[in-house]
């Protein structure tokens, strides 16, 4: 996994600090060309790994990537599935069965599986539910066909809900499906990193990739920043840091110095909407990591 990964929140009107900023970004990026300009700027700065949700518009972006292999052959993608609001909107408009039919294109099969889930609830962890999960994963992953996928992340909305239910079977099946079908690492987004890491290791998922909010302010680090720091120091996994600036609440240098000082952080995910901002952030991350590397022998000694 590359050390720096570019996120997509700014493209789709996601901003945790301000609804007005979220809406102005959504307006700015309503055309795919505007998104591609920023992707091109990131590539020009040496960033080639991108994390994308499976928002409807990402399918169009993937078509553009495929149509220009000369330009985008170096692109590495980390899909984060599923994009929950797509499904929530479809359920609102078409009902559960209509929504599942739309996304899986297999009406009767899906209907039977959904009836099994509704009857049994989470206590019925049977083959049907796992099959529905695989179908949903494959449906979401379709848009990335032919592109260079590095790892497939399970969105925190699903990860944390399943973690709350402690369903080991589903995590194991998810990990196996991603490895066997796509030949890449399964990965997990979460808002409860220490809890998830313990659980994944308990499931036998070794050295998992876990992406979570890691920042100096402790924002969205549940149950505490201290628990995260202890987990990073003690457990064997591949942590990826997001929300390192806590949506702009922390000064950039202070934010990056904190994250780079933590042991074992493999990658930092960030988003930006201008070339200058991308360049500044990337340079800051690289320089902080270099500084930490030089300090390491002194810290160990």
């Amino acid at each position, binding site marked *: 996994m590359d050390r720096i990964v570019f996120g997509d929140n700014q493209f789709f*009107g996601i901003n945790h*600090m301000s*609804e007005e900023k979220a809406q102005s970004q959504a307006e700015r990026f309503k055309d795919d060309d505007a998104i591609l300009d920023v992707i091109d700027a990131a590539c020009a700065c040496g960033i080639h790994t991108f994390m994308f949700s499976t928002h409807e518009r990402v399918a169009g972006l993937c078509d553009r990537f495929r149509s220009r292999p000369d330009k985008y052959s170096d692109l590495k993608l980390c899909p984060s599935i599923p994009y929950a609001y797509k499904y929530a909107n479809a359920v609102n408009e078409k009902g559960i069965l209509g929504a599942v039919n739309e996304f899986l294109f297999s009406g009767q099969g899906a209907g039977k599986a959904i009836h099994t889930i509704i009857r049994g609830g989470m206590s019925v962890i049977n083959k049907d539910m796992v099959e529905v999960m695989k179908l949903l994963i494959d449906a979401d992953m379709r848009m990335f066909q032919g592109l260079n996928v590095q790892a497939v992340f399970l969105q925190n909305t699903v990860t944390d*809900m399943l973690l709350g239910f402690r369903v080991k079977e589903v995590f194991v099946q998810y990990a196996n499906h991603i490895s066997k079908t796509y030949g890449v690492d399964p990965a997990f987004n979460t*808002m409860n990193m220490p809890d998830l890491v313990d659980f994944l290791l308990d499931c036998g998922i070794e050295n998992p990739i876990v992406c979570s909010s890691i920042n100096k302010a402790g924002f969205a680090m549940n149950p*505490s920043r201290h628990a995260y720091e202890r987990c990073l120091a003690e457990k064997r996994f591949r942590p990826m840091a997001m929300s390192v600036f806590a949506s702009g609440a922390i000064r950039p240098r202070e934010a990056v110095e904190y994250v780079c000082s933590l042991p074992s952080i493999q990658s930092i995910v960030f988003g930006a909407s201008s070339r200058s901002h991308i360049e500044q952030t990337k340079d800051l991350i690289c320089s902080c990591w270099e500084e930490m590397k030089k300090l390491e022998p002194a810290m160990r000694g």
Partner: protein
Amino acid sequence: MSTTFAYKGGMRGNLLANWSDPSYRKPSCQFEALGRMGKIIADLHSYKVFFSYAPNLDGFTQGWNQRSYTLFATPVRFFVRGFEFTRQLDHFIDCVVEGRPCRICSFEDGFTTDTMLQRIRADGESRGH
């Protein structure tokens, strides 16, 4: 859903809740409370307070003051779809275990909320909505 509240003391407020409009990425809620000396506007991300005078409150000044939830949301023991659900659950359990009254969002507050929802619905229906 948009509704206006008018209180006997002269305060007015507006509540906007939206859960199915494609112009919003996800369900959103905003309320405004308008008083003689200022106003408060709050949504899921932040609150803004306007004081028409210099308030005697640390960190707040005359004019607009904005606070984002990234600065004041404290972590919870388990986050699932927001901080609020765990926080409410834990507060309820703590009150029961410690034998103290539930001062934040009691059953009475829940009843008041349900009553207000019914009055909003009835008011909307009386206007042909």
